[in-house]
């Protein structure tokens, strides 16, 4: 793998090879970066397939788009083994407690992709039984527009999550649940 977040010790003083210096070919990195590299290349998704977006989710796993190239092909149907929840589809108010519970059962660290218009904002279902965006119940890291999004867009979302994994390793902090007051466009009906 060429994208190990390490730095070869090339900045060492080149003049002379004295006793205390490291071998210039020794690869050094921080442990947090190394763990993040492992995490981002094995993001096992929890397929929260609730509607038609799940079909595109399956297409992403299939050979044509082949998300195994990103190490995210092992769909885990147990939340205990999953790193990343892909909410694909309309989250109804009846399903919302189950989504929230499954998210709570996932071990930290965990990421959430809201795939498609319904999961991101409620989409065209501005009605009483539909949660207007899954970020009303769980924190969402990446939003993907589309109805449904193409598998490429979902791969793009997974690549964005991989970048977030790296950033979180650098920042060492967790994204908090956004407050309802800061979210625009959560009105229903009309």
């Amino acid at each position, binding site marked *: 793998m060429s994208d190990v977040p390490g730095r070869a010790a090339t900045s060492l003083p080149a003049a002379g090879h004295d006793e205390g210096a490291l071998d210039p070919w020794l690869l050094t990195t921080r442990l947090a970066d190394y763990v993040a590299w492992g995490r981002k290349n094995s993001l096992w998704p929890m397929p929260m397939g609730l509607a038609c977006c799940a079909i595109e989710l399956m297409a992403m796993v299939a*050979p*044509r*788009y*082949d998300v195994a*190239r990103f190490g995210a092909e092992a769909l885990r149907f147990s939340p205990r083994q999953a790193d990343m929840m892909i909410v694909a589809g309309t989250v109804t108010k009846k399903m919302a407690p189950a989504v929230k519970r499954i998210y709570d059962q996932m071990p930290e660290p965990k990421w959430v992709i809201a795939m498609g*218009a319904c999961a*991101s*904002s*409620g*989409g*065209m279902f*501005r009605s009483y039984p539909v949660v207007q*965006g899954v*970020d009303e119940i769980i924190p969402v*890291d*990446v*939003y*993907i*527009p*589309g*109805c449904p*999004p*193409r598998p*490429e*867009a979902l*791969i*793009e*979302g997974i*690549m*964005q999550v991989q970048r977030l994994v790296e950033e979180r390793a650098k920042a060492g902090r967790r994204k908090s649940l*956004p407050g309802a007051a800061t*979210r*625009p*466009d959560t009105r229903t009906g*009309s």
Partner: protein
Amino acid sequence: MPLIGKPVSRPGRPTLLELTYLPSILKGMWITFRHLFRRKVTMQYPEQTWQMPDNYRGLPALVRDQAERVKCVACFLCEYVCPPKAIHIEAQEIESGVEKGPKVFDINMLRCIMCGYCEEVCPEQAIFLTREYSTVGLSREEMIFPKDKLLQMGGIRGDSIRKWSRLTQDGEGHGAQGAERSAAR
């Protein structure tokens, strides 16, 4: 009563070899092995991209005409027809006096379902669905695209409508082309 059709043949007791599951495993591995020599179907996505047809419906965007005027006249038809109510428009007067224009034109891309009704209903051919399909966002605020961003996405798409130059030259007395262009911006 006569028997209709053939009776279903049930498998008998498995032999000792079948009980080891080895023939089934080898059969499965052989199928997997054969796929090594078949045509490769995987599209290496970030490097290779899909050639979509011309009428592909991706994210919507606003366009300018050949004189770089904003073609939208804020008639609110797209806002009216939009099924998920993703479009938000506020109109304003523009200096040329020929038309009005949008002061605010927001499209919430997370609401948008790329149905193309806005493009279909637009009387000025000012809004088009682009072929952009792989945009992702980190927040809801970021995915509400303002007018400037939509115009930048749409680019320039000229047409044969000459109402701006005709109405300003036929004695309406609203100045030259240059003032009108600056007003439209």
